[in-house]
């Protein structure tokens, strides 16, 4: 599998670049191998995360948006990313690497579409966020309980039906009633939504696809940290 390449002979930057390509191809074993090699060279786990995994997933996100990659390939890439993250996560905690933010995500009540939301969750994880995926058919109460439990920075809501997307307003109103609306960034997505709808229900932004979701989440987190 790895005949052509000798990691030992490669420079750090080359390995990080190789990691991005391996992620693109969904090669989990190769990702692990590269991470281990870089760790043995005392490269900080945080650098591996950002320059290898996060950078790699960004490319995946863009190509997915443009239809160059499709769901099966993105899932493979996400799996490879996850196996890399499993290796890095404890080390990141140990080294006190900065935590990007926590996202609570779910498909709203009445809606049982799972896959698109899962892709967004994976891409957010790939971008370095901690993601709490509540699954489908999630009520306002469950969203709020998870936000409080995980001290979330971002709430991501998905709906694939014109009939269920209106529930997002219910959730946002519930956040207001709880007095926590201004403490959290609310991002919404799903095929029937658009910018006007997001504005109308007073969400912070509508994200058209997984790549934009990551971009938007990053942007809002920077603003928030700048506060």
């Amino acid at each position: 599998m790895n005949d052509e390449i000798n990691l030992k002979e490669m420079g750090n930057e080359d390995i990080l670049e190789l990691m991005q390509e391996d992620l693109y191809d969904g090669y989990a074993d190769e990702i692990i191998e590269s991470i281990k090699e870089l760790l043995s060279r005392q490269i900080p786990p945080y650098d591996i995360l950002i320059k290898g995994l996060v950078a790699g997933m960004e490319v995946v996100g863009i190509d997915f948006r443009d239809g160059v990659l499709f769901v099966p390939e993105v899932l493979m890439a996400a799996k490879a990313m996850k196996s890399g993250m499993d290796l890095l996560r404890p080390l990141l905690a140990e080294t006190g690497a900065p935590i990007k933010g926590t996202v609570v995500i779910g498909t709203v009540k009445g809606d049982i579409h799972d896959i698109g939301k899962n892709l967004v969750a994976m891409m957010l994880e790939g971008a370095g966020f901690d993601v709490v995926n509540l699954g489908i058919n999630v009520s306002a109460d469950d969203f709020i309980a998870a936000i409080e439990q995980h001290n979330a920075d971002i709430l991501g809501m998905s709906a694939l039906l014109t009939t269920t997307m209106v529930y997002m307003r219910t959730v946002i109103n519930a956040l207001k009633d709880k007095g926590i609306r201004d403490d959290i960034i609310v991002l919404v997505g799903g095929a029937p939504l658009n910018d006007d709808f997001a504005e109308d229900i007073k969400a912070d932004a509508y994200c058209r696809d997984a790549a934009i979701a990551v971009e938007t989440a990053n942007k809002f987190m920077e603003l928030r940290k700048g506060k």
Partner: protein
Amino acid sequence: MPSGRREQVEDGQTVMDAARKVGVEIESLCGGRQSCHKCRVIVEEGHFDKHAISSSSKHLSSPTNNEITLLKKLGTPEQRLSCDAQIHGDLLITIPESSQAKKQIIRKKVTNRDVVIDPVIKQYYVTVRDAQLGVHRGDWGRLQDALETQWDLVDLSIDIHALRKLQAALRTENWSVTAIVWNNREVIDVQPGHKDSMYGLAVDVGSTTVAGYLCDLQSGNILATEALMNPQVSYGEDLMSRISFVINRADGLHLMNTAIIDSINELANRTAKLARIHPRRIHDIVLVGNTTMTHIFLGINPREIGGAPFALANRDAIDIKARDLGLRLNPGAYAHVLPSQAGHVGADNVAVLVAEQPQCLDSIILTVDIGTNAEIVLTSSKWMFSASSPTGPAFEGGQITSGMRAAPGAIERVRIDPKTKLPRFRVIGESCWSDQWQHRDNECADTKPSHLASGICGSGIIEAVAELFLAGILFPDGKFNPDIDCNAMYWDQEKRKGAYILATEDQSFSGNPILITQQDIRNIQLAKAALYAGAKLLMMRAKVEHLDQVILAGAFGSYIDPKHAMVLGLIPDCKIENVHAVGNAAGDGARIALLNRQKRAHAQDIAEQISYIETALDPDFQTEFVSAMHLPHQYDSFHNLGGILENSAVVTKVPRRTRRRRRTANN
């Protein structure tokens, strides 16, 4: 407007509503939410003497940001979305060809099937004892006596309209009448003397097409068949848009209910006219439709089936006075609505099973009815499973760049030469393939030939994707093969995103080439994977690995070529000769239930016995769905294609997908 129609409208009305008011249908996929772009219109600027108006885009409300972005993206910033633009002054509007909701070609025809004629209404000719002084039984009492002694009918009731006619009817033909009795329980009509003709109407209320069959209830013959576009289309293309319309507008249910009831009345009138009878002589009607349609025509708010847990107001068959629905048939007539199965598997699917009876055969049969939602049923003589899969509008031309309904000008057949990689196609309304068009150019030098392509319809897109795959232009993962470079292939500068030119500028009606983009392929992959995964989950639930037969129901199914459907991986492997299209089986089922009362009981049994599977909740759904996105499938094999895949130009191995650098020995 191209229709030449004009009308005064209220200030603030949208262009789409105004068009509807003058009887011009504008296409709308999203139900007026400014997210599709199918309703684009052109505002003519300037003064028009012919109409004595000065038209200006300033007479429309300014576009929302959303509209501006969408139109810019489409490269038509000067156009407007008719669902958004509100009228505030004089306007001359042109509705481009692409935005016109056309009358579809799909005409629901009925096949002839053997049905035992045993309708739910029967005629009884009786002679009633005349009224005499001192006998206070009443005319209805005397008719009851006569029906009991002459026909053994007891415990009857009588419809108020029949009662109102009774006395005159009895006295017209010397106390002999024909009573029309429903279900051996109720006299719904009385006619003087001896009458021996009865008529009934079977109606399939589809989301797009409403089809009616007027039948002679004695011979079982179909006297007339008519189909209309479902007028609800202009309130929202798909079911969810229509449910949203009901939720978002106070008068939404009323509007859509009235629209569909009017259509059914229109069908009754038209078919009756063709059969040269009065609609009042229609004494029975059977209605089928998907669950949203049945809710709406019954005047029940479909809100609950708009979201999980998709609770139906009623699953079982119902009988209701047709007049209470607003239907103008015989005033005593009952309407029978066949039962549904579950949230999104409705009476139309039960009707398919009534007509096809796959559950009565000792083989494993997959029945699929493809629309925006695909209903999938797997049966053997021992069990029945059903599911609903959200295939989306791609097979109906929605979400496809050049997609359109199956109307004249739509590309419906596609072949791609595996060597030259160049296409030829056939459009609806034209028997010649595109490669034979040349000869005709001289004949019509002045006008555009009628055969030019306007877009691609569902069967066309299925063939196109299958042919692209067979020609090696698409990889099994659905990506355009970057090694292909021919006149029909279009690449962006980085050679990252490809598109295939199905019809050139010269072959297209608009003068713009008709493309299949990478995103179109992705949308077809999603749609076909949803259908395949649904079928596969039912097979897993039933613990079967092979199918003996596949039945393609629905008008659309008739136009799909089984081979291409299998190459695409739309349906699981099955002997190609055992894949049958059965046309509008739902309409047939409705007609059978009209002619035979036992079949109504049978339909109720089906509804109760079938196991409905909520595929989205199945833990294997995501895996099955994702594996089915490949062409034809990531793991499953298709032996019955008889080597078509192996002997084609299919590229079986997907090269490593790296973008910038390949991992080679030199590295």
